[in-house]
């Protein structure tokens, strides 16, 4: 139960996030109004980092819950547990956030069962309250409470699409991969490598994203590039780092790996 949510205290130092368009302004405005936010974007483009940065900036606690297939509403709201000779109620992460006025971040919410996502409905509209039927009460959300869910369109199957009634309660912010300049800066900062190496990595990532008609399911995310950068910072050659962190991570198919290797070889500096 407790393993479900992260320690709810603000990060010690400001998480590094580079805004691309107006997403920070939108989030700030939504936070002032207490409007729930839906974050869309491909894997590894910085959705979680963005929420962390915003929570820090707003000075609120952040409670993260990762969605999975068996996530029940009791996992979110809370349940009775035995303590000594009697049962005691233990708040779930969502209830805690509602009481404390924290930001509750439900990562990959569509992975959860659809009946689970329905418990957030009364929180996500003008009522801003969480009915806890086990206790027979309805909790009014504390002023700082904000609901943030993330969602990766096109990645889930048709069966796991987000419900229209859920979707329409949210302010949507779409995050994409950052422009080359910003991404270079991010990779250099996060991985701790020089700008030149970061620029090469971003160029590789960009080339893979722009390939037309590849059999790849996912493209090289910023997270992958940072991972490759991390390997470089640990003393690996650029070529070796890209091969193990990007090319082999993206595909298992030897044919595709070879073809990607050709692209990478052309872009990396000649040995």
């Amino acid at each position, binding site marked *: 139960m407790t393993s479900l949510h992260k320690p709810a205290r603000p990060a010690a130092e400001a998480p590094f996030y580079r805004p691309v368009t107006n997403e920070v302004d939108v989030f700030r405005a939504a936070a002032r109004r207490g409007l729930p936010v839906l974050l869309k974007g491909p894997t590894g483009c910085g959705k979680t980092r963005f929420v962390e940065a915003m929570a820090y900036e707003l000075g609120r606690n952040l409670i993260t819950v990762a969605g999975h297939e068996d996530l029940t509403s009791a996992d979110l709201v809370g349940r009775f*547990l*035995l303590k000594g000779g009697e*049962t005691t109620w233990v708040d779930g992460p969502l209830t805690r956030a509602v009481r404390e006025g924290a930001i509750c971040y439900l990562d990959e919410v569509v992975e959860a069962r659809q009946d689970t996502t329905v418990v957030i409905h009364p929180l996500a509209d003008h009522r801003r309250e969480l009915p806890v039927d086990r206790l027979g009460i309805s909790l009014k959300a504390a002023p700082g409470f904000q609901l943030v869910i993330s969602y990766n369109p096109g990645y889930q199957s048709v*069966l796991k699409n987000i419900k229209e009634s859920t979707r329409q309660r949210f302010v949507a912010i779409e995050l994409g991969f950052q422009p080359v300049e910003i991404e270079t800066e991010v990779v250099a900062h996060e991985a701790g490598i020089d700008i030149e190496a970061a620029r090469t990595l971003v160029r590789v990532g960009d080339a893979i994203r722009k*390939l*037309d008609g590849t059999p790849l399911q996912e493209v090289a995310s910023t997270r992958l590039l940072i991972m490759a950068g991390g390997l470089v910072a640990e003393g690996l050659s650029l070529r070796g780092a890209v091969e193990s962190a990007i090319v082999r991570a993206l595909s298992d198919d030897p*044919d595709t790996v070879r*073809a990607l290797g050709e692209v990478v070889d*052309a*872009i990396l500096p000649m040995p």
Partner: protein
Amino acid sequence: MTTSDAKSPSRFRFLATYLAGRSLDVTEARPGEVAHTDGRFVFVSAARSVSERRREVLVQSALLGAGSLDRRLVKMLRGRPNVARRYLALEGHRALAALSARIPLAAALCPAGEPITSTADESLRVARGSKNVAPAPEWFGVIRPSRLLGAPAGGPSAKATARDLRLEFDTTDIPESQDDGDTEQGKGSRILGLFENPLASKSLSDFFNKLFGNSRTPSDSAAGGEMSVRSMRRANRVGRNARPLPTPLRFGNHGTPGSTVGVGGALHPEWDVHENRYRPEWCRVIDFPLRSAHDISAAGVRHDEVLRRRLARLGLGPKVFRRQPDGDDLDIEALIDLAVDLRSGHSSPEHIYLERRKLARNLGVLILVDASGSATESDRDGLSVHDHQRRAAATLALTLEELGDRVAVYGFRSHGRSAVHLPCIKPFGHRFDAGSRAGLNQLQPVGYTRLGAGIRGAGEILKTGAGTPNRLLVVLSDGFPYDYGYEARYAEADAHKALEELRADGIACLCLSIGTSTPTDALQRVFGSASYATAPALADLSPRMDELFLAALRELAAPRPRGVRPTRPRVCSG
């Protein structure tokens, strides 16, 4: 295109795509030819090493990426090999130099010195002039204007996904009907009234009446206003993987109950192997419920225990069971309830575990039975191929239904391209009851076998009707497609293509030939892209039916391992 050979030129396809900025494939040129491109493929010279080919790909795709091979420019090079050679030397140098800032490989291969020209037009001017131009290195290859201009523009495209192909109608832009219950419509036409003369004979008016009918056009707007006007744009070029969509048929107007009794249909395309193109809206495929006299005596279906046991393991998803007497995890809710019960002096059974079992069925199967006349040849027991197939279909459908999968059974036969019939024996969502079983057992083989259209029609039903994540089409046929204007290589290629399309749409296919004598190589040509098996009777296949189903479904789940021939499960007939 997909080979596991490390030296195969297809390894450069992403590099070429990246450099050219559009989808591009790489293949081997005919022996003796030097490297060139047609805008869709880069042809690299045969029998060269990987690094030599790499630079050929580099320069050819760089030319495409730099716009040096635009149609406008290439037209000027037609029939002037000398100019083309000088142009290639200039432009190759320019394109590589432009890339070398980004691509170290280009920088390493770029000829020394600054390029003389800065735009393609300038290069063309210089090439046509008399200025001395250093000859291009041999690996630059050649520019072949005829091939560049002959190929359709656009390049090879990505395969269309199911989402692209989904048929959608935007109903919001249909002009609203003007019909607001205006009673005047029922009356006769005012214009016709002018011809009516109470005194004279009504023959003139009757004549017009017969000619034009006796009512006004059903709307009050100007003539023709009742017709909804739409426009449609046709693309004049299509990509390599483009394929026509089925066009749904409308039976009569809204008043007729065709759709309510389950009659559906569509015009499907057909693949013409000789022309290497689709014939759009070629076959009319109609599916309709099969009506049969309910002779329940014919409803017997043989049970096959082996088949049942084999198929029971298939198509399962995990399902969590709460409050179980034992399992791998504690169900905390149940545990607390039990503790509360015990504390309050009531001892309930200790069902406090969670168990995850693979029990949720998530497979939808459509069984397509060949009901054509070609299936009438009989074996030594006097059972025709059709009898074998019928029995196999019944046993399969019964077994799958008992296991909780969604099953439909359709027959198929054709009389030319305008009448491909799919009689529905058991739709999805109905029980396989005595009536359906009798219907299946009394299915009479008549007509011909337009296999491709039948498969496309069944695929469409499976797409809309199954509603499960895993979908499988089981075709029971002798693998001998034949119809008017549909035979031999043409028919085989069309059926093959239809199966390929289905797999591209995420539907697994399994073809079973039971009790037939069709040679294996013919089956290979027809069912080549799908899993298939032949056997004298279904019972011979039962012990390995799970493997067959899985092989068919697995092909969709993950890319097939390269270099290994796809498994072709086969049971040789004895």
